[in-house]
């Protein structure tokens, strides 16, 4: 590892500690009695000091050292935390963050900012300029070493109950032969046999892991049964490729033995028959128990890309085997299919990160905003542990920042106004994440003034975004949606915080760009909720493949509501716009070839039936006419590079099993562009009529 890699690690960790510091400080500011938060701050400052010292970043060492010195009397309880000190500590944190940002681009930091921060700290604590000895860190509890075949109080209870009921407890150590190919199959068979004879009370590793073949050589089961040891041995040994099956009867007193220590010899496990093989299993399992390792995200991306390639090659193999009817290949191919599926799944899981990663900086952000605006705001966060693919997480951060700012700035009223309304002067913003199938739903709700649909109507008309006629026809819900139009703002003076009210518009665009869905709910006087739905991953999605002319395109399934065959009788033309009538709903119809600006040639078969996809574009539905639906499959999304991104209407591309490329359609932009084009054409036609100018040839 070179020094650059050390720096990378330093930067990542320093950011984590700074984010912890910020959050603990926000907590502490609200409730100064939070002892744990003080300890946390102290710990983080101390660790940061140590890290900076190792890297030789002297100004950081000096500042964190002084922070520790000032915090010490507070930690020991001899002094209480003043609001002034909290403010000063925030200033110090900002200075530290600034240095970390600088270090991302260069290898040294200037002392600039250090003196003023030190002076602030010195002015805060009377003992701040004392000897400033480095206090000992609060000991962190050692991570629990993985106990080996130890039983919890509960498990022991259940097992002892079972022996009283006349059943016996056996420990079965199974080892598969080293060249076993179908590990998971064999393991599954053994589990099945055991389940037929009794109940598996405990296993190492967990049963799901065993079924997936996630063990090195073997595994251990604890079975409660009325069978004999010999019967169990046969049940396990009858499965092919089992190298060893040791069965040992456990007495209730065996269960009482305390958890085995890591010094494996003579331990509970080794009491089993084969000492040598058992202890190698212990070693392997302990290896599994290593807590975590840090991997650079680019390596994960690379891995993901390789798996995608693998999936594509696999599909090609399958196609060849199919067309050539190579029956001998069907077994190995289904095995390959199984493995690649699981590999893809596992790598996807590795790429998942908790939303905490971005939620963590919000408490400080909301606090600062509220302070600047003289508002009182509580940020409640829920579901920070919900996990999402890293790329989605990155795309999610910006919309959330916009919406939170919006909530503090426009949503929550100032304390006086709230008091007049009979509300708690403290406004509440709730940021919530939850997982629903393959989607993650993030909601941001405030208990502020809400959105007044009539004000929105008026404003939209004033800004020339809609006509008075149009607003009159809108429901309140539809009117509220107008705030997400580009350039709309409900507040007259553009504030420093949410700019010119571009927030909602930008957030909506961003969310939809990653295939998400954006919704607004609001009740005047009661508050506003923004609901954002994100796909769990952007790397691999389900898509419908459609043909238009000779080309095949992919449309994400999440955007499609249904596919229908439309007869001429079901079509309408309203103001030169084709539409279809579907269950009493009029849906505008666009031919895909026109959206894609492909030359118009005769389409539709003799029957007059047209294949139409009903898609959801933003808030409204759009029908797309395609030449053919080819099928549905999982596709790996390849990003388009800078140059190609300039062409609107495509969110990426994918490589089909045949090796051919299929572009992934962004139906929203395609429809917008076509509407624009038609509008322009109409206008130039009108201008021509007005001036009677010669048509341009």
């Amino acid at each position, binding site marked *: 590892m070179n020094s650059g890699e050390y720096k990378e690690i330093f930067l990542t960790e320093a950011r984590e500690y700074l984010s912890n510091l910020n959050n603990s400080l926000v907590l502490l500011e609200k409730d100064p009695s939070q002892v744990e938060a003080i300890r946390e701050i102290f710990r983080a400052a101390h660790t940061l000091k140590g890290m900076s010292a190792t890297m030789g970043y002297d100004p950081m060492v000096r500042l964190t050292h002084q922070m520790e010195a000032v915090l010490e009397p507070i930690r020991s309880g001899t002094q209480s935390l003043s609001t002034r000190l909290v403010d000063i500590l925030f200033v110090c944190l900002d200075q530290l963050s600034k240095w970390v940002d600088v270090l991302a681009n260069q290898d040294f930091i200037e002392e600039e900012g250090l003196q003023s921060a030190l002076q602030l700290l010195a002015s805060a604590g009377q003992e701040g300029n004392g000897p400033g000895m480095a206090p000992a860190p609060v000991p962190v509890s050692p991570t629990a070493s993985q106990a080996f075949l130890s039983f919890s109080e509960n498990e022991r209870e259940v097992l002892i109950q079972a022996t009283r009921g006349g059943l016996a407890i056996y420990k079965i150590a199974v080892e598969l032969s080293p060249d076993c190919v179908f590990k998971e199959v064999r393991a599954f068979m053994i589990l099945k046999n055991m389940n037929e004879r009794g109940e598996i009370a405990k296993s190492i590793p967990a049963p799901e892991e065993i079924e997936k073949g996630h063990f090195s050589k073997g595994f251990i089961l604890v079975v409660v049964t009325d069978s004999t040891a010999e019967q169990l041995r046969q049940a396990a040994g009858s499965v092919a490729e089992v190298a060893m099956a040791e069965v040992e009867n456990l007495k209730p007193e065996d269960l009482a033995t305390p958890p085995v220590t890591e010094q494996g010899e003579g331990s509970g496990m080794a009491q089993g028959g084969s000492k040598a093989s058992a202890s190698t299993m212990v070693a392997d399992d302990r290896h599994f128990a290593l807590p975590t390792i840090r991997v650079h995200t680019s390596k994960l991306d690379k891995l993901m*890309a390789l798996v995608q390639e693998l999936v594509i090659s696999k599909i090609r193999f399958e196609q060849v085997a199919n067309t050539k009817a190579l029956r001998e290949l069907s077994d190995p191919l289904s095995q390959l299919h199984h493995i690649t599926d699981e590999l893809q799944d596992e790598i996807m899981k590795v790429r998942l990160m908790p939303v905490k990663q971005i939620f963590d900086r919000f408490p400080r952000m909301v606090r600062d905003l509220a302070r600047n605006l003289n508002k009182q705001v509580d940020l409640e966060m829920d579901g920070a542990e919900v996990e999402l693919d890293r790329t989605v997480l990155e795309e999610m951060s910006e919309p959330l920042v916009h919406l939170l700012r919006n909530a503090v700035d426009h949503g929550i009223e100032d304390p006086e106004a709230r008091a007049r309304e009979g509300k708690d002067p403290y406004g509440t913003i709730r940021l919530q994440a939850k997982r629903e199938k393959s989607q993650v739903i993030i909601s941001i709700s405030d208990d502020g003034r809400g959105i007044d649909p009539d004000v929105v109507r008026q404003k939209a008309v004033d800004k020339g975004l809609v006509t008075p006629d149009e607003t009159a026809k809108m429901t309140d819900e539809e009117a509220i949606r107008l705030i997400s139009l580009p350039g709309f703002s409900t507040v007259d003076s553009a504030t420093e915080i949410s700019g010119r009210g571009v927030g909602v518009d930008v957030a909506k665009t961003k969310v939809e760009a990653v295939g998400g869905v954006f919704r607004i709910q609001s009740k005047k006087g009661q508050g506003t909720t923004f609901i954002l739905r994100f796909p769990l991953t952007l790397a691999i999605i389900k898509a419908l493949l459609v043909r238009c*002319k000779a080309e095949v395109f992919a449309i994400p399934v999440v955007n499609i509501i249904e596919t229908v065959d439309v007869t001429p009788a079901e079509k309408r033309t309203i103001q030169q716009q084709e539409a279809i009538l579907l269950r009493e709903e009029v849906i505008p119809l666009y031919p895909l070839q026109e959206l*894609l600006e492909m*030359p118009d040639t005769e389409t539709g078969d003799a029957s007059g039936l047209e294949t139409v996809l009903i898609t959801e574009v933003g808030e409204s539905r759009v029908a797309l006419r395609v030449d053919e639906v080819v099928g549905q499959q999982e596709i790996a999304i*390849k990003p388009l590079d800078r140059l190609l991104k300039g*062409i609107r209407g495509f969110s990426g591309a994918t490589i089909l099993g045949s090796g*051919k*490329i299929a572009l992934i359609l962004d139906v929203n932009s395609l429809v917008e562009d076509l509407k624009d084009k038609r509008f322009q*054409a109409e206008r130039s036609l009108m201008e021509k009529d007005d001036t009677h100018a010669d048509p341009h040839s």
Partner: protein
Amino acid sequence: MSLPKPETTGLSKPETTQAQWVVFTLAGCESAVAIRQVREILRVGEITRMPKAPLFLEGIINLRGKIIPVIDLKKRFQMPPVDRTEESRILIVEIQDQIVGFLVDKVVEVLRFSKTAIEAVQGPILTVGAEFLDGLIPMDRRLIFLLNLKKLSTLDDAKALPDPHSPTEARNFGH
């Protein structure tokens, strides 16, 4: 005070060492790009058309799992069309993290000459605007255009050449 960094077009940096250039033909015109910019030279396989793209974007190809745009330089310079042959190639070049393929009629040879041999270009030559040229190499009876790949690696054709097609005419898709 330090001076602003000169554009690395090759011209502004006086250099005596000999650089290597990949020479190819476009509708009979000989052109060249620096060999260090060329990542690889491919035979022309299947190129997927990209709808809504400018005409000179020939399409996109799958290069070992990466989607690479392919630009047809003849269309870009509005040179007479030449049918694809066995000798047609795609030059994969890398310019500032951007990988682009250029469709050419034939790769002729790799030449070595020093930067002092390069002559500056004053105005457009044939249909090629001066901004797309880093210079010219006159050799015996040959004249080799040195292309500025950075300027060519964009779909922004507003400045390239006046578009003879009226804007309302739909862009052709497919042949």
